[in-house]
């Protein structure tokens, strides 16, 4: 996996951990909209 891939996975895991900790839901948005 590339550095980008590793970074993304780390961010996603952090977000899921944060969602669990704060009893929130995760919203995963797949988009092609301009950044």
């Amino acid at each position, binding site marked *: *996996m*590339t550095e*980008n*891939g590793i970074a*993304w*996975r780390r*961010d*996603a895991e952090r*977000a*899921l951990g*944060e*969602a*669990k900790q*704060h*009893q*929130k*839901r*995760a*919203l*995963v*948005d*797949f*988009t*092609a*909209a301009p*950044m």
Partner: protein
Amino acid sequence: MYPDERVERLVTFEFVPIRVHVRDADDVYAHVSQRLNVQWTPTVLILDEDGIERHRVEGFLPVDDFLAQLKLGLARVAFQRGAFDEAERRFRQVVDEHPQSEAAPEALYWIGVSRYKGQGDASALAETARAFSTRYTDSAWAKKASVWRAA
């Protein structure tokens, strides 16, 4: 993250957002879209606290419909974990706040189911069927609720 203030407010308050852009590194998009079975953009997934998908929105929606879908997803998360009072309240919020949305008849259906499951009150189903006799009469959800008319 979202240009509309109402969407941004709801997302900030209720969710931890994760964005996956098609222009992300190939391995990221390929890996994540395959793992979550996403074939098209935009697709929005709502995952519960354990990372399990509970709701999916595929394709663009105008703001009001998108908000309704996000709230519908929150209601479904509550329903799935057996929090039926919360689920009923959240489904009702969809009908009350977004009555013209596609999500509203679905939410109306699940209001009845949530009350039935939460309180064991079968009259909730009959009441829901009656509600469909005056609202959303041509929806698929009205057909599904029609079996409860005699309940």
